[in-house]
């Protein structure tokens, strides 16, 4: 089947999508957007976090056909122009990136958190990022990065 949707502001048609395919597979293998990572395929790790119709979701748990006519924003669509988004800058500066595999999902989840709660408490950060697993950093620097991004968007 073909799936038409808007991805990062551009109208796209993914052709020849298998009916049992996830939105994640469609984004990566049909539309060439490799930012959203494929790891657990069961919603446990958060590496494939994207916006679907403005809501933060795990792309691996969305059936591709459910994205028909919907607006999707992936990690590739956060920054305007050639630079990085403020959340991405903060992750780099805080040293919140090691192997980098979890980073796209954490960046999208942080982006969502700061849209909802511009000045989150530590507890709110931990709750918001509880579904994004990082096996390198131990999370301290990730929380630093969220605080750094929040501080900058306030000023």
């Amino acid at each position, binding site marked *: 089947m073909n799936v038409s949707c808007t991805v990062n502001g551009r109208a796209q048609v993914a052709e020849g999508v298998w009916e049992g395919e996830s939105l994640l597979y469609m984004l990566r293998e049909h539309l060439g957007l490799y930012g959203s990572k494929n790891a657990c395929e069961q919603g446990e790790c958060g590496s494939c976090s994207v916006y679907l119709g403005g809501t*933060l979701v795990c792309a691996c748990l969305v059936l591709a056909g459910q994205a028909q006519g919907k607006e999707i924003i992936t990690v590739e669509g956060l920054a305007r122009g050639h630079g990085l988004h403020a959340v991405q800058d903060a992750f780099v500066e805080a040293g919140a990136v090691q192997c980098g595999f979890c980073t796209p999902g954490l960046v999208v989840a942080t982006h969502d958190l700061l849209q909802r709660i511009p000045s989150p408490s530590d507890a709110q950060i931990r709750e918001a990022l509880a*579904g994004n697993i990082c096996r390198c950093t131990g999370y301290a620097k990730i929380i630093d990065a969220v605080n750094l991004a929040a501080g900058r968007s306030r000023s």
Partner: protein
Amino acid sequence: MEFLQPATWSEALAMKAAKPEAVPIAGGTDLMVEINLDHRRPATIIDLTHIKELTEWGMDDGRLRIGAGVTYARIIDELGDRLPGLAMASRTVGSPQIRNRGTVGGNLGTASPAGDAHPPLLATEAIVELASTKGTRQVAANEFFAGPKKNAMRADELIAAFLVEPARGPQQFSKVGTRNAMVIAVCSLALAVDPKRKHVGIGIGSAGPTPIRAAEAETFIQEVLEEHRLWERHVHCEPSALKQFGELVAAAAKPIDDVRGTADYRRHALAVLARRTFRWAWDDYRKSK
């Protein structure tokens, strides 16, 4: 594989009637795992996310009628004051990404003994509304769960909604797990205090082949509260009665040893959760006088 996307509820029911083996999908947080990991290959999938009625809720003859497609995130945000027990349970479901997609209807459809929504639905005597082209029927939550991942639905039915009275008193939910997020319950317990009916409802999760209503423990604590006029006096009940209450809740469970915990641990933990959630709820009731 065939992918069907009905635009209306009647269309969805007609599709399910024509293909009873078709599997419905809403948030996908259960079904997609099975498909991704190749544990299941349904011949037909019916996407219910375009059906507006399923995402709506409102009052219906004194009860809240909540569409099967209302997500956990919306239950927390929109119904937290009216259904505090279910909202507490919803906050323990997965992660924000899962709560944004997952629905109580999906939880009921999967009917896992560990489904987080089930204990509060049992404690509040919720009703599940099932629909088919032949009409709708209502099944008490207590009679809905038939076995591990088995429920009372016929093959031609879909879950339309669940009905539950807004809380008239304190409600609590407690869940044992290794983390505060992304955890399948080792065991869980929901408790609902209804001062008007002088009723205490108790639902147990993840400690038996189905979620379980602890009926004997409910009767026991109601008798204690009645006998000592605790509803009127607004005082605490005796520690010995509370201990016996915990033991009755533990005795209602039918746990097994599995990867998440042993049967003995689950029974012990349930007695603790029962005493603890009752104390929390009763404290709230005493302060509310």
